[in-house]
């Protein structure tokens, strides 16, 4: 068998998280709402109605374009894509055909082996979503709730080479969408949908062979599996002397199976032309500058900075930049803390992330803010509390909302570092153990640890261990 490589391009539809739809004032997100409850004459295509562009959709679309390193076009236009389907009430979809909001762009993927892979963007434009249809008891039902929900359609160049790479693209795109706040990017809810174009060729070849399109690969696992299945099918077909045909395939995620939807040759002519109901979208130089200014530092940039600025390992920096609020939290905590940034990283990657998991929260939703975390670590460093108390404080602050120092004070959790108080406790311990004192004095200095333990037991663990050791030595050698 020859050595084949798989060539993959992904077409994604991203639901922008605007408050209202793209051309009317209906609520945009209809998750779990009754069918046809978020509709109006505009988005249900009544005659005489006209679209009015939602500025928030343009802002978010432009922000995404900027985050993809695409050029944000100062002038873009809307076109009509004409076709008949019951979920498309106007009989045309308003989309951007030849003058879209973004031009070019790429997403750099970090791969498991630490290398980077650049995936170029072929197309990035704004459009409206269509509704949904389903067949129930032999009747076709239509739900227009989703009609007019703002989408970004983003198509990659055929730059991906395996199901795993495609999965990584989706994972990192999802991270980016949430990072810049333009989409909830929840694949289960259809905020991020994906179709995959797949072809094969002999490794080393540069030709693009006939591709098939797999529809509805709407989870990370589906992308991985469907592409794998399809590549295998194509290779077997070609090896057995067959020829790949330009099919559209459907991925059934329940049965992990591909099925033929239609042959591509029957593809419709959409008769695109400018939508005369909408003005061109103009973004001034100032507006574009404003969008670029609003663009936060992106995950990969921040990860690199964490390594150089805070001396974190690649691994730690990666985990801490997985999600924007976590990395923001980290930086705020480091800023409030005088010790090593690595110490904060350790706390966040262990105890704090466990707490986030248990509570099902993101870092920005915690009551325990970054300053409180810094304060707790600082108290341990300063010998005011011990590490165990520090850990227990995390939960106490989160539940009560009080400052860590207040809780320590109120509950008496502070260490006994006061010399007189500690001296009294030590004297009591020494008085109770005349034999051990004698042995120590006779040269058995290894007993020091035993004395420290006794003091700890007497004080319920609140004795400052460092100070206790110093005082013990002082008093035993007297």
């Amino acid at each position: 068998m020859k050595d084949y490589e798989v060539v993959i391009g992904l077409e994604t539809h991203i639901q922008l998280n605007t408050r209202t739809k793209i051309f009317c004032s209906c609520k945009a997100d209809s998750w779990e709402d009754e069918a046809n409850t978020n509709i109006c004459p505009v988005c249900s295509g009544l005659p005489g109605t006209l679209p009015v562009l939602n500025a928030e959709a343009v802002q978010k679309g432009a922000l995404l374009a900027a985050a993809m390193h695409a050029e944000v076009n100062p002038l873009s236009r809307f076109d009509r894509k004409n076709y008949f389907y019951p979920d498309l009430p106007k009989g045309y979809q308003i989309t951007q055909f030849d003058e879209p909001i973004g031009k070019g762009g790429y997403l750099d993927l970090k791969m498991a082996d630490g290398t980077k892979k650049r995936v170029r963007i072929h197309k990035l434009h704004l459009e409206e979503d269509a509704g949904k249809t389903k067949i129930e008891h032999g009747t076709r039902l239509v739900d227009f709730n989703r009609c007019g929900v703002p989408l970004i359609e983003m198509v990659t160049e055929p730059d991906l080479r395996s199901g795993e790479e495609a999965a990584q693209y989706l994972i990192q795109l999802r991270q980016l969408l949430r990072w810049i706040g333009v989409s909830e990017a929840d694949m289960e809810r259809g905020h991020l949908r994906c179709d995959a174009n797949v072809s094969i060729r002999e490794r080393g070849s540069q030709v693009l062979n006939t591709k098939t399109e797999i529809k509805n690969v709407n989870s990370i696992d589906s992308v991985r599996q469907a592409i794998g299945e399809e590549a295998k099918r194509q290779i077997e077909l070609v090896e057995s002397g067959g020829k790949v045909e330009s099919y559209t395939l459907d991925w059934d995620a329940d049965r992990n199976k591909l099925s033929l939807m239609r042959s591509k040759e029957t593809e419709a002519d959409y008769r695109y032309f400018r939508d005369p109901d909408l003005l061109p979208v103009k973004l001034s130089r100032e507006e574009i500058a404003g969008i670029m200014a609003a663009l936060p530092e992106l995950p990969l940039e921040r990860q690199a900075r964490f390594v150089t600025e805070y001396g974190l390992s690649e691994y730690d920096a990666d985990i801490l930049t997985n999600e924007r609020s976590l990395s923001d939290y980290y930086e705020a905590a480091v800023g409030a803390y005088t010790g090593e940034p690595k110490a904060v990283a350790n706390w966040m990657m262990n105890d704090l992330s466990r707490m986030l998991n248990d509570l099902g929260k993101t870092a920005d939703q915690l009551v325990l803010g970054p300053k409180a975390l810094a304060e707790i670590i600082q108290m341990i460093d300063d010998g005011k509390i011990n590490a165990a108390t520090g850990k227990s404080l995390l939960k106490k602050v989160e539940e009560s909302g009080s400052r860590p120092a207040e809780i320590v004070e109120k509950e008496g959790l502070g260490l006994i570092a006061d010399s007189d108080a500690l001296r009294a406790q030590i004297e009591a311990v020494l008085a109770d153990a005349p034999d051990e004192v004698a042995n120590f004095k006779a040269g058995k200095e290894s007993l020091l640890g035993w004395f420290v333990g006794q003091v700890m037991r007497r004080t319920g663990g609140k004795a400052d261990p460092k100070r206790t050791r110093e005082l013990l030595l002082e008093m035993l050698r007297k």
Partner: protein
Amino acid sequence: MSLTSLSAFEVARKVKAGELKAVDVAEAALAQIRAVDGLPGSLDGGAVSADEEKKVHAFIQVTEKMALEQAEKVDQAVARGEDAGLLAGVPISIKDIFCVEGTTTTAASRMLSNFRPPYTATPVRRLIDQGALILGKVNLDEFTFGSSNESSAYQPATNNPWNTDHVPGGSSGGSAASVAAEEVALSLGTDTGGSIRQPAAFCGVVGLKPTYGRVSRLGLIAFSSSLDCPGPLSRNTRDAALMLQAMAGVDPKDSTSSTRAVDDYLSTLGQDVKGLRIGLSPDYDAVYYPNFETGELHKEAIQKEVHETLYRSAELLAKAGAEIVENVPMPNTAYGIPAYFVISRVEAASNLHRFDGVKYGYRTESAVSNLSELYRLTRAEGFGPQVKLRILMGMYLSAAGHDADYYTHAQKVRALIRQDFVRAFEPDGDHRLDALLTPTTATTSFKRKAVFGNSLLMQYSDQMTVSSNHAGVPALTIPAGLDEAGLPIGIQLIGNDFREDLILRIGHAFEQVSRDEAWRKVRPQVLAGEVKA
């Protein structure tokens, strides 16, 4: 003078002054409709009696209850001492292409014969807010596709009140006829290639196509979205100014509506025209038909009486103090119809996609076995032949591969046509016009069935009007005489962007200077026997 002969301006004045009850105005209009309109248009309206042949048939639907309720409200407001609005108590008809809550909005098509919109078009809403009384929905060519009213699915189609053997023009034929027959004082029409002005000229009334974007299109069932303009039909220029005043202005729900402040059209209407520069163009002296084999243009002179009326009108305006500028070149006028043919049909085909039997409107009653059959049968049964022709043309012209040949090319022609107007109006150009004076139509109204069926010839009756739709500029038609057969002749004043004030003012000056001409005493046939005061 009978109540129904009163101008809108007079009605509103008297109603607001308490000299006249809006309810009486409504009753008088309803009585006039009963007297002259005959059977309303209906889907199965076939042959009619000889008596009905002599009726106007402007209305598809008379909204008696709505009109009386609105009149009641106006009278109450007047009684309370409130401002009852610019159009207090003025009877108005609405072309049945505008959505009006509480009415069936048919577009004169079987496809929408059962469609009851849940909202009211912005221009209609604004008329109602200014105290207008909505008397009903009037007939038109199906989906506004025609220039004679004959393509309406609602028959009998409207007749010309001046001679009921003739067409009223179209597509706003019902609007023009209802105003001419004094059933209403005003009508709301739409103009895509001449659909307000051509029927207004044929019926001897005033019609104004405002600047594109001056009046909101929200609630107007779209024909060709980049060309459609709602506008007034009236019996004089003051009434047109009044109605425009009530409707004009930005609509946040129509992105293509202009944000420019609305002028006070009434206050400048009475000013004289001394020193205003009015142009005449030789390019409006003839109609050009292309030979489809060779692409060559054939020239056909316009009707002699129309030409004479135009030049006589220019002399009258000169007498009133205007400066007449001859030989203004408008070289791209001849290409207006071919470009319109392409643009309007491509947009229309797309605009008509939504009528598929799924959500509202007509759905085939035959059993269907699949979705595409539902679409096919619904559209085959729901649309009339003119509509199907336009869809087929539009589909063909916008098909992949054809786009660059037709639609893009037509858009370039459109830009050239606009350039003609820009040059003519340029303040420091060769001509420095305030308005261009042209015939509104090449001929007076034609007989029923004389042109219908020849959709090409029908289309060319818009040659004098279509350029201002391409350019987006405002254009006004006013009656200027009668031909030998006693049919009205219209002249057209085309102005620069948003200069409705100027063309209305010139039109008004023409009304004053021609006030005592004999033709002004002649009444339409359907009003014969009534004495005009």
